[in-house]
């Protein structure tokens, strides 16, 4: 049930998006009720996506005004995108491209291909319900996968092992992102799917021009492969439209960051990272993403001009490094309400996007721009390649957003970032930057519970920042068995 928010305007926003989310979901059912029912048996994880409005509730506890509206818009945008993805499997998968989450999806769009991201269940389910993926992780561990590998590909492999990822697809496309575990997991899928596969190889030193050219060649190979196996042709004009939209989004994204860096940041926390994660990485360049960016930008701009901060009681400005807590999706809300912390940017979002505008003048420049964009995708630009990719951006982000401290989400399954811990600590100490590394497991809250995460942050706030909580009753919450 929707709780009364204290004023009619907020209540209306809550109700409106609650209804719109349900409408979007029912819209999927309406396309073909029979196929949807069959899909619910084939892919039972779809049930868990019905918990979305509860997730919105958890995100928005105590929020009002622009922050509440943005959060609702944010989740609704994701719901629309997920529904579109689900259509690509619900209505049959024989023409669907099964793809890794970090392959340039702009190419599928330009080729008018149906695609489904293998990692979609893993990316969404732990946010909906922290324990819903436990069974998948247990299953794949029982099949021999070490329990210490990153839970993102581990859940995906578990869903695959359970037979809940479509197998009768047209082709499989993957690459070596976001990490080695993700890359290796595709060997397992490829081995068990009897379909043609193409693997993109993102070079190690992707800032080198030769390496970038190599990746462009590889992308050309992927396009030729897709044309051969799907019968669809590459539509370069459509690609130009998509990339033009992306360029506009990029422009808006940079403006949003400028506003977030101000004294009264109108957006913070998941309103920054989920936006970027979804619209840049999962579902980039399409007209929905673009329209959403334009719409929310106006709202953010107005709040900025009114000097309305994202948090009613903003006490601390922070930036978050390493991947955010998927299995504790509403962690941000606790930061806000318990300590008045606003995370103004994070590793998933931050990068040198001022250099990422794509020249759409020729097919070659478009591919080169796309190559640069995807080499710099989330988890690729920082956790891969030379060490210099990792730390300078963190210090730059800290300064740019005038942060009081850095929160480092120490995901124990992330080899690449955990191997930087020592140098990061030393450099932060040398620079006199307060920082808190909290250990956790990205998508497995059995390794570190929600309370375990909260305790680590509270200890830091008490002992290093010498702060007092805004609301002491939130220091310890019994939510181990909640969604």
């Amino acid at each position, binding site marked *: 049930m929707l709780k009364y928010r204290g004023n009619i305007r907020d209540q209306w926003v809550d109700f409106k998006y609650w209804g719109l989310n349900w409408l979007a979901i029912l819209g999927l059912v309406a396309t073909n009720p029979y196929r949807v029912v069959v899909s619910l048996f084939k892919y039972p994880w779809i049930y868990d996506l019905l918990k979305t409005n509860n997730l919105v509730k958890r995100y928005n506890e105590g929020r009002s005004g622009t922050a509440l509206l943005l959060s609702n818009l944010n989740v609704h945008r994701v719901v629309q995108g997920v529904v579109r993805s689900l259509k690509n499997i619900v209505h049959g998968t024989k023409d669907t491209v099964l793809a890794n989450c970090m392959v340039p999806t702009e190419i599928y769009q330009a080729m008018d291909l149906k695609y489904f991201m293998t990692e979609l269940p893993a990316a969404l389910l732990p946010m909906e319900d922290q324990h819903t993926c436990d069974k998948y992780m247990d299953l794949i561990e029982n*099949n*021999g996968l070490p329990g210490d590998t990153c839970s993102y590909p581990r859940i995906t492999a578990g869903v695959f092992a359970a037979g809940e990822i479509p197998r009768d697809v047209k082709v499989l496309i993957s690459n070596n992102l976001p*990490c080695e575990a993700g890359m290796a997991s595709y060997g397992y899928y490829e*081995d068990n799917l009897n379909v043609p596969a193409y*693997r993109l190889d993102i070079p190690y030193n992707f800032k080198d021009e030769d*390496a970038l050219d190599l990746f462009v060649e590889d992308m050309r190979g992927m396009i030729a492969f897709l044309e051969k196996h799907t019968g669809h042709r590459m539509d370069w004009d459509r690609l130009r439209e998509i990339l033009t939209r992306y360029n506009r989004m990029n422009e808006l994204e940079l403006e949003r960051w400028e506003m977030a860096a101000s004294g009264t940041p109108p957006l913070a926390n998941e309103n920054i990272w989920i936006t970027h994660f979804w619209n840049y990485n999962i579902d980039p360049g399409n007209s929905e993403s673009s329209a959403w960016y334009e719409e929310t930008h106006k709202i953010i701009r107005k709040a900025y001009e009114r000097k309305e901060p994202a948090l009613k009681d903003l006490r601390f400005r922070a930036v978050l490094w390493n991947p955010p807590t998927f299995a504790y999706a509403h962690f941000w809300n606790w930061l806000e309400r318990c300590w008045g912390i606003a995370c103004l940017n994070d590793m998933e979002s931050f990068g040198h996007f001022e250099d990422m505008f794509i020249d759409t003048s020729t097919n070659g420049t478009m591919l080169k721009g796309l190559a640069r964009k995807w080499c710099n995708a989330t988890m690729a630009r920082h956790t891969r390649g030379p060490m210099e990719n990792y730390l300078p951006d963190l210090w730059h982000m800290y300064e740019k957003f005038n942060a009081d401290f850095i929160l480092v989400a120490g995901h124990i399954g992330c080899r690449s970032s955990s*191997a930087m811990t020592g140098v990061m600590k030393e450099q932060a100490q040398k620079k006199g930057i307060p920082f808190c590394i909290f250990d956790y497991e990205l998508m497995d809250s059995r390794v570190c519970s929600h309370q375990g995460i909260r305790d680590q942050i509270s200890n830091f706030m008490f002992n290093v920042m010498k702060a007092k909580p805004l609301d002491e009753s939130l220091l310890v919450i019994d939510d181990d068995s909640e969604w």
Partner: protein
Amino acid sequence: MVMKKLKEMEFFEGLLDSPRNPLVDEALSQGRTAVGCNCYLVPEPLLSMGGAFPVRLRAPGAGSTELATHYLSPFICSYARSILENALDGAYDFLGGLVFASSCTHITRCGQHFDQLDIHAGREGFFTHFLDTPRKLYEPGFAFMAKDLRRAAQKMAQSCGMDAGDEALSEAIRRHNAFNALLRRLSDLRKEEHPRITGTEFHTVMVASKTAPKDMLLGPLKKLVAAAEKREGIKDFRARVMVVGSIFDNPRFTELIEEQGGLVVADRYCFGSLPGLEEIGEEGDPYESLARHYLTTCECPRMMEKLKDREGSLKRWAGEFRADGIIFETMKFCDLWGYEAVSGVPKLRDSGMPVVRIEREYAFVGEGQLRTRVQAFIELIEGKRLAKALAG
């Protein structure tokens, strides 16, 4: 298993106790340059031009990795941590340069710390190069890697004042091939019904050949091969096994397996010979030849598209070396081999091959547990053999 020890083995055994072994010392005293490397994908002939010679990084006697764990965290494999710990202790101070391959996250991050922590500070002319090694086989990738190998060679040439031209590399490839031809003779003895060399002995020779100048090993190796070829075959083993996995540079592990009666006849692991002893093409552009050879023969799960080929290779080698079973050893925290096992182990078992999966640390620890598991595995192979005989 009782086998009279070959006196020629003592020489090789003496090279394994420290990265700076007596042959390395001798070469250094002649003014030669030792170049450290971390992976099969750093081509040995590249580092063998002029007076240079490759030293594959090892951490013999690795123990606590306290400092390295501070830098790399406890979630990085213990090989990478042991190497960094050794480096911080100055164990590789004799090196004149390092060529690393971006082979896996653990090794890459470990290598990056050499520069970051300025481990080679004050050593004049020291050079490092990170090879951007492709993960798939395609023509642009071969050309890209060849270009990268040239860059590494140029750095070496500037640092060591040597010739890195095509002819110098071709000569290094010829010498490498000649050395490997000799090693192959030794390796082939393992294929016989009664192998004339133990797995421990062969493992020792392989590790020595990757950590000491090959030209200085040539004489002792010839003597060893001659002695082994005259030797009686081993008859009192209980099962022939193949060891498959990642970094495995301590022959003490192999010895433990053989103490249980499992004769190690095939070695598909880093520091092993499968792959490693194939002839490198001597025609055409030598840099391209190296790139093509190493990418094509690499059997590491880092190569994205070769899973089915790797499964085929394992079955082929198991047949060639008449292995009765496979010990699939993976290093803790290794994602690549973790996923490889999920795909590969069931397939091998389905083909009728007994397989045991062992997760281990780099250092020789957990001996009792390991012994028990190997013992049980050998019994399983014997049990299967007996059941087959009774059924047949």
